């Protein structure tokens, strides 16, 4: 392979990206050395097994990816803003919509959700950590190395260009000859293994580590949503694992799974992809429903309306999510019977979802609503998401779908589902739980500015796409002629995208501003909220709860505040905690290099790093590591300091 094939060349924007990558990757170690922070970084963050810190790292990575994916989105909107635009060529445009989709779903929405799960779930169930803290760190580093591997494709070797769904035969070696889709298969594979491990970890955590008295039907709704989500993860991700492995085999080992001419079947890919892909949508949407349930109930000062029906509807959604996949390709031609069945199952999803919408509305009814930033996002979610849902039912009708299929109407629909359904939720959750992790709230005024920019601009960006789609503009089209008349609405959409950018910049500035100026929170419960995570201090001590709370009903913390009865009594006992470990990050690095060499089919170094991966596993199994105990004196010291009392020396 020649150097000019290894590095992507010939595009000024790519050169700029290369320069910025080099600058950033030099600046970080230099800054760390200058400020003598290497040791701090290694012991406090990189080797941590603390679920709160892992959660924070997930969310930081997700924010980073939000901006990477956001730049892709801006470039797409800029390219299509005017007819016959030459900002990007067709190939570059293909790469950008592919990476935008993959990054936003797998490296932004998923880790943001998993980050919130990490921060909140053990606290919400009154536990001191997740079931397998070390495995949790492994999950994070696998996700992170997958994300980084996917991102370097832009400058080294070329990005995938066959869409985020990577349909065959387009994604085959014949039609996508660069290494781009090798990156796709291997980076997603690595991150996907991490996600599967997260799924197992949180299932065991929720099933086995709840505080005494917290039966399943007394769990907070977010915990319920995460439990169901992780069941979906455990059964959906292995399908992706297989699909990606077959893609790698087809592209790099000459097998015939998806090649028509030698007995393969191209639509087999589409089926496998969406058997994972549709449940994936619910993996990012169900926890969001959980977040909204928590926030709406907290800020309406009422218990959640229809708790049982919320649970039942989520279980129903999770089951239905596995039997709707073929609605992504009604036009494949699999006959009236199949299309009808999938059409009906798809429309059926609207029923449990509708139940949830009404439950939120009834929770709001006669509530004492306070319009905080997280609440504003939750309130905006309800009508916007309903538009997404209703257009979804339109798309679900197989015969009508022949008109909508692969048009901008579809693009508008899924952005109307995923942005209020997931992005608003993670932002709301971010604002809501931020004080729990850091001990102070984000500034409300800036938060509301960001909210209005984001919500209004979102509609300005995506509503025109419904009309463009109905007018016949297809998706993934890198340019169009003036005579189509698509220009004006695309320009409106571009203006909206700029507004969204402003909104997200305010959001990030708000983090900086609040770190500097926000008043510190003293009682650990700044929102006067309902579930257990608010019963401990903010920021949360390493061991979460000095005494494990006992729960006798839903919203036990709320009633304990009302009735003035503490949730936990008794004397402190030494607390057993897991030790930090460098193995997970080394394993992540080994996976990164293994993946990189796999992408380029450099077998010998790939085998070497494969052996390194096995070595880390062997090290782990022979290692003797029984964790450590936090002594009673240390707990007393920490608790006093967190209550703001003086040390007694």
């Amino acid at each position: 392979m020649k150097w000019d094939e290894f590095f992507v060349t010939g595009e000024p924007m790519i050169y700029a990206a290369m320069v910025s990558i080099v600058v950033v990757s030099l600046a970080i170690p230099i800054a760390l050395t200058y400020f003598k922070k290497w040791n701090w970084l290694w012991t406090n963050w990189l080797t941590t097994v603390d679920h709160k810190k892992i959660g924070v790292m997930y969310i930081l990575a997700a924010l980073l990816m939000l901006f990477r994916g956001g730049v892709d989105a801006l470039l797409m909107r800029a390219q299509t803003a005017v007819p016959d635009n030459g900002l990007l060529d067709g190939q570059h445009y293909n790469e950008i919509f592919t990476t935008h989709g993959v990054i936003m779903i797998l490296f932004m929405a998923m880790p943001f959700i998993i980050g919130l799960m990490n921060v909140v779930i053990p606290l919400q169930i009154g536990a001191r950590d997740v079931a397998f803290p070390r495995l949790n760190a492994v999950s994070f580093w696998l996700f992170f190395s997958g994300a980084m591997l996917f991102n370097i494709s832009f400058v080294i070797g070329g990005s995938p260009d066959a869409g985020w769904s990577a349909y065959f035969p387009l994604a085959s070696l014949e039609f996508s000859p660069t290494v781009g889709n090798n990156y796709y298969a291997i980076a997603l594979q690595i991150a996907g293994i991490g996600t599967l491990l997260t799924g197992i970890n949180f299932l065991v955590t929720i099933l086995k580590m709840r505080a005494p008295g917290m039966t399943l039907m007394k769990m907070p709704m977010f915990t319920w949503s995460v439990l169901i989500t992780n069941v979906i993860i455990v059964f959906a991700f292995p399908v992706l694992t297989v699909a990606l492995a077959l893609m790698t085999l087809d592209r790099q080992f000459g097998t015939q799974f998806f090649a028509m001419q030698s007995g393969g079947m191209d639509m087999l890919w589409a089926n496998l992809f969406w058997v994972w892909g549709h449940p994936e949508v619910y993996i990012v949407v169900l926890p969001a429903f959980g977040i909204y349930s928590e926030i709406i109930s907290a800020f309406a000062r009422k218990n959640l309306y229809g708790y049982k029906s919320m649970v039942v509807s989520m279980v129903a959604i999770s089951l239905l999510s596995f039997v709707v996949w073929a609605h992504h390709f009604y036009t494949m031609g699999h006959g009236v019977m199949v299309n009808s069945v999938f059409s009906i199952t798809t429309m059926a999803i609207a029923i449990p979802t509708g139940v949830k919408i009404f439950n939120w509305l009834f929770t709001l009814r006669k509530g004492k609503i306070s319009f905080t930033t997280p609440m504003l996002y939750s309130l905006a979610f309800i009508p916007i998401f309903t538009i997404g849902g209703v257009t979804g039912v339109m798309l679900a009708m197989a015969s009508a779908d022949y008109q909508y299929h692969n048009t901008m109407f579809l693009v508008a629909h899924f952005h109307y589902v995923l942005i209020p359904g997931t992005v608003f939720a993670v932002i709301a959750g971010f604002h809501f739980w931020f004080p729990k992790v850091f001990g102070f709230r984000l500034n409300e005024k800036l938060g509301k500015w960001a909210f209005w920019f984001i919500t209004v601009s979102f509609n300005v960006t995506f509503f025109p796409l419904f009309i463009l789609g109905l007018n016949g503009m297809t998706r993934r089209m890198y340019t169009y002629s003036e005579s189509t008349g698509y220009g004006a609405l695309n320009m409106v959409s571009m203006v909206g995208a700029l507004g969204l950018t402003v909104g997200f910049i305010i959001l990030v500035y708000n983090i900086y501003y609040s770190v500097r100026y926000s008043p510190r929170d003293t009682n650990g419960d700044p929102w006067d909220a309902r579930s257990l995570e608010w019963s401990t201090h903010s920021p949360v001590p390493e061991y979460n709860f000095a005494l494990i709370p006992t729960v006798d009903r839903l919203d036990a913390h709320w009633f304990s505040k009302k009735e003035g009865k503490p949730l936990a009594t008794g004397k402190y006992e030494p607390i057993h905690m897991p030790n930090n470990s460098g193995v997970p990050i080394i394993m992540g690095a080994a996976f990164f290099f293994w993946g990189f060499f796999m992408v380029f089919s450099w077998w010998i170094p790939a085998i070497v790093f494969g052996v390194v991966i096995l070595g880390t596993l062997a090290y782990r199994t022979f290692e003797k590591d029984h964790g450590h105990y936090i002594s009673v004196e240390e707990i007393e010291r920490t608790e006093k300091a967190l209550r703001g009392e003086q040390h007694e020396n």
Partner: protein
Amino acid sequence: MKIDHSVPMEYSTDENKMKILGFWIFLGAEIALFSTLFAVYFTLQGNTNVGPTASDLFHLSPVMIETILLLSSSFTIGLGVHAMRLGLKKPMMTFFGITLVLGAAFLGVEVYEFVTYVGEGATIQTSGFLSALFTLLGTHGLHVTFGLLWGGSILLQIKKRGFTPETTNKSFIFSLYWHFLDVVWIFIFSFVYLKGLM
């Protein structure tokens, strides 16, 4: 760490119980993985292109030997876990050792099978059918290979550290894994080989 002596040692701590539950959930994911591979195989089994068909390729005797080897290994690991619960270190190690030897023999026969197939012009690249066949069998074979490494390292730990809550827990979980591979093989034997021979 609290140790509960009323249950077998592999269940005796909370951490051990969680690890066993976690592994059962992992096996659930493995079922999803192999189900997908079976689905791919069933979809492509008729697409033989210019290559041989299943009935051209398969012979009962090597497959029968593989089946007997793997099924006996599942039996011996069961005896090993039984010996472990009785606290008998030597017999436990012997049965685990026999299990691994049987597993290695199974792999040997499987490799011999693969070499024979390739010799008859049936490679993974020949047709959709063969790609799916080799991938399904290969995934199972890789699981067995990984099991040999894993089981070997557990044997070493038992030898060095004896029966502790950790080592018994690992041994028990490994036995779950091994039984699972046996179950998958029963499906391969029935729905790939026997069906293909018909």
